């Protein structure tokens, strides 16, 4: 059941009603039943796996608190986290392993294995929970209903955000009927997320698919445009599903963490990764980068560079066992190491040159955006050779014979002109609303506007979504 289906709308309305009627601890049980009902619509066998892994983690954490010696605790937590990692690797890499096994020796069976829906998200939540308990950052969760709800919480299971256990359990402890302002905010976030997905992302996808299918057939200008389109597509798609997830959560009294903070306005690559897929980068910073960086602290700059590089490669391969994702991560690792090692010197340099510093304020975001456009070409490409073809053909002079560097084939846009124009305008509107909703003055102005102004705005957005709906594609991040 997709978030963008009528069945889900009915499920959500019914679920919210039952939740409103429930009292006290029953609310948690209602949420758990709703979450498993939602997950069962995808795949019942995968729901059994989710429940089994959750139970294993629950008993592991309960057993951990009974062990007092540091060595004993370490010896207990390491196999548990390694086990969860193995489950992730097994399901994500089954197809890859199948290539190395003859069909009759299990290769066929391996090839048929499909990674469970939301596996990367719920396993990261559970690993984080175990490590937080081990580091004594949070107490052990004794209530099995709360524990089972944490990884299965239906708004977040398809595409995140990866909420931390401490934050989730704290909110769950005092869960009550959601406040009316949270319901309004939640419904607005859902509408805004649908707008991002249906109006912006889906209209950019046709152009992106075309140029990635045959990069050698396009001019550098067309490829560059395709690169820009994909950056906006993936941002709108992923931040759209995050908005929907946060919005649904608010209807049930749980506020999920933000995943994006206007990343294309980042002044450097470090800042970009603090604004893009925030819940994943924070997770990897806390559970991979920090322990690694601390363990390598005696190696100075080399230790820092290694910790950054490994973390960014992990960001890449978290998406799946594909070379394009690994190289996407490695390229970002390279960007980050260079940026981190030169940032202080660059800051000192510009501090003494105010005129250049003013220029840097504009050039920084522009350069960062273009570095990410190149990296995202790798992320989107069908294969590494295809990405290489795309990146080399984007350079003027390296395009295929007979294609001029500045060619912009109107036929490419022929049927999509209006769609692209609509997507472009919508993107600008989307970021303006995004910005305004973060400025208290503007948010308050909208809230205090007469009812007919607010309702007109909502109906206009619903109308735009309805008019622009085409064959809706699944959310890009639902596959991870």
């Amino acid at each position, binding site marked *: 059941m997709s978030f963008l289906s009528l069945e889900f709308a009915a499920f959500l309305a019914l679920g919210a009603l039952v939740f409103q009627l429930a009292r006290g601890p029953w609310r948690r049980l209602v949420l758990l039943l709703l979450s498993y009902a939602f997950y069962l619509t995808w795949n019942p066998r995968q729901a059994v796996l989710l429940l089994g892994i959750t139970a294993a983690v629950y008993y592991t954490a309960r057993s951990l608190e009974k062990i007092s010696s540091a060595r004993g605790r370490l010896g207990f937590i390491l196999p548990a986290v390694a086990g969860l990692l193995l489950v992730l690797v097994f399901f994500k890499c089954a197809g890859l392993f199948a290539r190395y096994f003859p069909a009759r020796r299990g290769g066929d069976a391996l090839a048929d294995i499909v990674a469970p829906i939301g596996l990367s998200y719920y396993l990261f939540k559970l690993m984080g929970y175990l490590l937080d308990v081990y*580091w004594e950052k949070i107490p052990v969760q004794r209530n099995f209903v709360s524990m089972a709800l944490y990884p299965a919480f239906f708004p977040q299971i398809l595409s995140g955000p990866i909420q931390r256990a401490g934050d989730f359990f704290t909110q769950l402890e005092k869960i009550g009927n959601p406040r009316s302002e949270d319901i309004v905010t939640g419904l607005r976030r859902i509408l805004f997320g649908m707008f991002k997905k249906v109006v912006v992302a889906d209209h950019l996808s046709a152009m992106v698919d075309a140029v990635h299918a045959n990069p050698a057939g396009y001019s550098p200008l067309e490829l560059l445009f395709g690169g820009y389109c994909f950056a906006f597509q993936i941002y709108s798609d992923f931040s759209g599903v995050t908005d929907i997830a946060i919005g649904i959560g608010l209807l049930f009294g749980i506020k999920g963490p933000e995943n994006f903070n206007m990343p294309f306005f980042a002044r450097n690559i470090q800042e970009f990764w603090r604004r893009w897929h925030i819940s994943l980068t924070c997770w990897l910073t806390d559970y991979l980068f920090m322990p690694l960086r601390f363990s390598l*602290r005696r190696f100075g700059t080399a230790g820092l560079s290694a910790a950054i590089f490994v973390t960014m490669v992990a960001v890449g391969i978290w998406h799946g066992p594909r070379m394009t994702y690994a190289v996407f991560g490695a390229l970002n690792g390279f960007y980050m190491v260079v940026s981190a090692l030169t940032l202080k010197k660059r800051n000192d340099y510009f501090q003494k040159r105010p005129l250049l510093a003013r220029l840097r304020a504009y050039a920084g975001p522009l350069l960062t955006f273009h570095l990410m456009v190149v990296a995202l070409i790798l992320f989107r490409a069908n294969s590494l050779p295809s990405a290489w073809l795309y990146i080399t053909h984007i350079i003027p002079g390296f395009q295929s014979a007979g294609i001029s560097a500045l060619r912009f084939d109107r036929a490419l846009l022929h049927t999509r002109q209006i769609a692209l124009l609509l997507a472009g305008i919508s993107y600008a509107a989307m970021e303006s609303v995004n910005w305004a909703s973060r400025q208290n003055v503007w948010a308050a102005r909208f809230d205090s506007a007469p009812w007919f102004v607010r309702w007109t705005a909502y109906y206009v957005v619903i109308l735009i979504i309805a008019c622009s709906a085409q064959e809706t594609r699944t959310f890009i991040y639902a596959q991870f």
Partner: protein
Amino acid sequence: MTDAEIQQKLTAIFRSVLDKDSIELTATTTAKDIEGWDSLTHVDLIVAVEKGFKVSFTTKEVMALQSVGDLMRLIASRCK
């Protein structure tokens, strides 16, 4: 070493590593309160604290830190 002495020395270390003379630490200060105290500079701070107080921390101890107060208590337990 008294708590006040630890706090004073810790403030000097933070000011030196983060290059900001305006830093004032309290037990409730967290990374969110100080500009420049991020995941990249966090370990630089811990290394400077280890050198400054002539102590050594384990990964688990460092990962459990959530505020300056936690760090002060950890240092105090080592400087007894």
